[in-house]
């Protein structure tokens, strides 16, 4: 068995030795340099430019402005395209925009011979704006008479949706219910992949080639073709190794403009690499959300009814738009599918940096709100926090009435048991009762559920090609992408497992090139091991069948008698060895009688989905006068089904926990409330987790086999980030008795909350 083993990553040596090539390592050194001019107002219209001084800078080749780009709006999010008009993504931006919608909007671009010339020219462009008052909160954007940020949405509501499971109004009439209300808020945060956004583009025979740091090469090709209004066949997108994405690169970022820029300089190679500051402000962020929750619980500790109203601050452009908050309010229902439940969600345009996809897609937001709220309920009603969750949480057999997604497997109960043990929960709950003094300790926990893929909301398709090489190895081509999460490694393991090959006989091609790579929508959701994994399995079975057929021809045996094990053709029953796969491959390639290029290509159209589940348990020490939180112990326990590779799985959990700690305690984008300018658009002022902020990270897996996953597996890439922030918030609550309903729990917020509660005088 190779699936399930902690093998080293297939790309680790290239990355450890420095030979792995990323976008910036591939670009021609004579490439022209493009730089984007970003608006210095948050809301307004560009009236004119004065380019005279800028053009005087030696080395400037061309300047294009928002008045020079095609008058065409296009969508950017990395969703599979819908052929149904009603489900298509919102087209609301141009390559460069005359109507300025946030501080940092793209309004012009300079192409120059070198970076210094481009940068100097940018500074010399004079812009005349008509300026309007920035609209920086969803509340202001939804006010009567508020100015429309996009004329297509006069009230600034991008989308509003609602649902009702059961009858809420009837349900709350039940005698003796306890009502608990709460308002919870999450901040705008940044992905902070260490490689910034960037691409380069050039033309060949009338076609545009874009090499980009993206999670979704096939989708980027479609978006460019929409932006430039040309056939998809005219565009070729190549994705080499990338330095992280976390959802930010599940969006068209620099690529459409970059493709346009090469076309205005006769197809010369143009590179467009964003700086860290631009990556913070001008790519995508995580949506800030605000939730109003009202719950009615019975004295026996079960939900009778609850409802949620959610507001998602979209920022300037739609990007993934409503999909995130819709996911959040669905998550509100799915985690505890008990009683009547009502959801109401708004996505609202504002003059802020554009929010898009980020690891776990709306669920860290609702995860914080819901799990904080559950602790509030337990506190008010006197319930045991763990038992209440156990009594109400999703169980195997649950089928969500709206999405039809079924709970095929659940190890959540066992996850909770192990988490409790790790922090010594029962004893600590007793120990930390009735504390006084400046330094107090507490324990907290949170659970989550997470949909693995995007079915049935969107198309789930994945194609794989496998070619048998003459040495009996196979090269595997996939549209699914490696973005750091370890996809190439687990796919290689899956291919080896199903083919009966050893891992060294599987060469997975890491680079995607839309000219040659089979179609897959790419790295997002936590879909690839689940959806693309099915395509690997299907293609491997098909290749194996063809190898056995040729071996049967060589051996004069029925192919159904044959199997492959450790690169040998063996008898399916006795396991007697007949041939090596290399012998079969050589004969198949060079046979004078029956030459046969053995290869397989299959598409898997997935029409299933499944929930990954898990929890976080944390113990903290709060220094009340210092308003600081120290993590003493923390563990995430995951049910992600069968683990394909314990080493890479641990990596996902560690990385997600680190991001979750940052989300709970430190990270936020700080926007100037008057101008809309981002004040901490760099790695010094944005409090990104350093190694010193990271405590020992506990992790564990409960591994029920999921019957719908290709190898019993389900989502793991995104979930680890979800339960951490609420577990920390609940631990601080347990320690101090102060329920903080917004993250991050930075000192300033804690000071305000502790002061309000009388802990600081």
């Amino acid at each position, binding site marked *: 068995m190779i699936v399930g083993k902690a093998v080293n990553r297939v790309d680790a040596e290239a990355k*450890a*030795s420095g030979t792995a090539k990323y976008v910036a390592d591939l670009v021609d050194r004579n490439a022209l340099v493009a730089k984007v001019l970003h608006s210095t107002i948050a809301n307004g219209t560009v009236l004119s430019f004065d380019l005279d001084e800028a053009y005087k800078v030696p080395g400037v080749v061309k300047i294009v402005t928002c008045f020079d780009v095609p008058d065409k709006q296009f969508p950017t999010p990395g969703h599979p395209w819908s052929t149904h008009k009603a489900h298509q993504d919102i087209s609301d931006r141009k390559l460069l925009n005359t109507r300025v919608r946030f501080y940092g909007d793209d309004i012009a671009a300079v192409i120059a011979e070198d970076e210094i010339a481009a940068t100097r020219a940018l500074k010399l462009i004079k812009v005349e704006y008509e300026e309007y008052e920035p609209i920086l909160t969803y509340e202001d954007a939804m006010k009567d008479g508020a100015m429309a940020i996009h004329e297509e949405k006069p009230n600034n509501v991008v989308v509003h949706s609602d649902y009702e499971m059961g009858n809420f109004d009837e349900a709350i009439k039940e005698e003796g219910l306890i009502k608990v209300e709460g308002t919870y808020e999450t901040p705008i945060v940044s992905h902070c992949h260490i490689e910034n956004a960037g691409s380069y583009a050039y033309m060949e025979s009338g076609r545009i080639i874009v090499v980009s740091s993206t999670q979704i090469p096939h989708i980027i090709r479609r978006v460019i073709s929409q932006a430039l209004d040309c056939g998809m066949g005219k565009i070729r997108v190549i994705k080499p190794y990338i330095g992280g994405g976390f959802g930010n690169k599940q969006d068209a970022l620099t690529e459409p403009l970059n493709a346009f820029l090469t076309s205005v300089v006769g197809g010369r190679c143009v590179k467009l690499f964003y700086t860290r500051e631009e990556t913070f402000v001008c790519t995508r962020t995580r949506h800030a959300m605000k939730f109003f929750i009202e719950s009615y619980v019975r004295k026996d500790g079960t939900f009778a009814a609850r409802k949620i109203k959610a507001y998602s601050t979209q920022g300037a452009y739609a990007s993934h738009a409503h999909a995130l908050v819709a996911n959040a309010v669905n998550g509100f229902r799915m985690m505890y599918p008990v009683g009547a439940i009502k959801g109401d969600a708004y996505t609202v345009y504002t003059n802020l940096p554009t929010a898009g996809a980020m690891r776990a897609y709306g669920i860290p937001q609702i995860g914080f709100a819901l799990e904080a709220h559950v602790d509030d309920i337990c506190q008010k009603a006197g319930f045991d926090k763990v038992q209440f969750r156990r009594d109400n949480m999703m169980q195997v057999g649950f089928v969500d009435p709206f999405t039809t997604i079924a709970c095929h497997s659940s190890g959540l109960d066992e996850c909770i048991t192990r988490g409790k043990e790790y922090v010594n929960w029962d004893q600590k709950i007793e120990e930390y009762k009735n504390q006084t003094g400046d330094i107090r300790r507490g324990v907290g926990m949170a659970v989550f559920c997470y949909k693995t893929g995007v079915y049935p909301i969107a198309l789930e398709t994945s194609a794989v090609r496998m070619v048998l090489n003459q040495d009996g190895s196979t090269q595997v081509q996939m549209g699914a992408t490696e973005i750091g999460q370890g996809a190439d490694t687990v796919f290689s393991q899956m291919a080896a497992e199903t083919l009966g090959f050893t891992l060294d006989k599987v060469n997975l091609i890491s680079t995607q090139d839309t000219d040659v790579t089979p179609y897959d929508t790419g790295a997002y959701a936590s879909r690839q091991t689940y959806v693309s994994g099915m395509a690997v399995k299907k293609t491997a079975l098909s290749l194996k069948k063809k190898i056995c057929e040729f071996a049967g021809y060589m051996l004069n045996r029925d192919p159904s008698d044959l199997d492959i094990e450790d690169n040998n053709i063996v008898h399916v029953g006795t396991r007697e060895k007949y041939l090596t796969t290399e012998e079969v491959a050589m004969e198949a390639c060079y046979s004078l009688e029956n030459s046969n290029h053995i290869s397989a290509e299959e598409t898997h159209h997935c029409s299933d989905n499944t929930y990954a589940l898990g929890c976080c348990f944390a113990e903290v020490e709060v220094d009340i006068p210092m308003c600081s939180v120290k993590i003493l112990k923390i563990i995430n326990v995951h049910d992600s089904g069968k683990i394909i590779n314990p080493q890479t799985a641990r*990596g996902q959990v560690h990385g997600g926990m680190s991001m979750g700690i940052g989300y709970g305690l430190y990270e936020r984008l700080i926007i100037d409330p008057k101008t809309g300018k981002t004040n901490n658009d760099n790695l010094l002022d944005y409090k990104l987790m350093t190694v010193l902020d990271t405590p020992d990270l506990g992790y564990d897996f409960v591994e029920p086999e999921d019957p719908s996953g290709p190898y019993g597996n389900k989502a793991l890439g995104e979930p680890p980030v979800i339960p951490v922030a609420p577990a920390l918030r609940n631990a601080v609550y347990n320690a101090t008795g102060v329920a903080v309903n917004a993250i991050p729990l930075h000192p300033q917020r804690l000071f305000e909350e502790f002061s309000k509660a009388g802990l600081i005088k």
Partner: protein
Amino acid sequence: MKKQLVTCTINGKVRENYIDPRASLSDLLRGEEHLHSIKHGCDVGECGACTVVIDGETYNSCIYMAIWAEGKNITTLEGLSTLDGTISDIQQAFIDEGAIQCGFCTPGFIMSSLPIIESDEEFTRDEIKKQVSGNFCRCTGYDTIVTAIEKTHNKRKAERAKK
């Protein structure tokens, strides 16, 4: 601007390059020497992805002027592999411990760890953390990186003690 000659030792070889005096050392190493292990995550000394060792000390090469390299001895990640491509123990430890994900921070982290693993001093985990706290990683949560450095440090110390 008129280019200037900079002569320095890079990964054991004396190299001469004519370079724009406004260029950074990372420009020289990436642009002229094609040493692509040097990554850029910020260009202003915040992220550590461009770390190299100059005369035994670690520096962010993005904020170190190329012309300051005159006469200096510079090591990049490429310099850690032998000529036949065999990687060093610290690189292998990063692989074995699962300390690499997207790999973009990896070269910088490995370079930042060199003064630790080459030192005879004792380093606790917390001290290792302090030493490499100028390097960011968004993927791994750092835990396995610290372990890779810790194990290599202990291994080298034991090897030196035997000699």
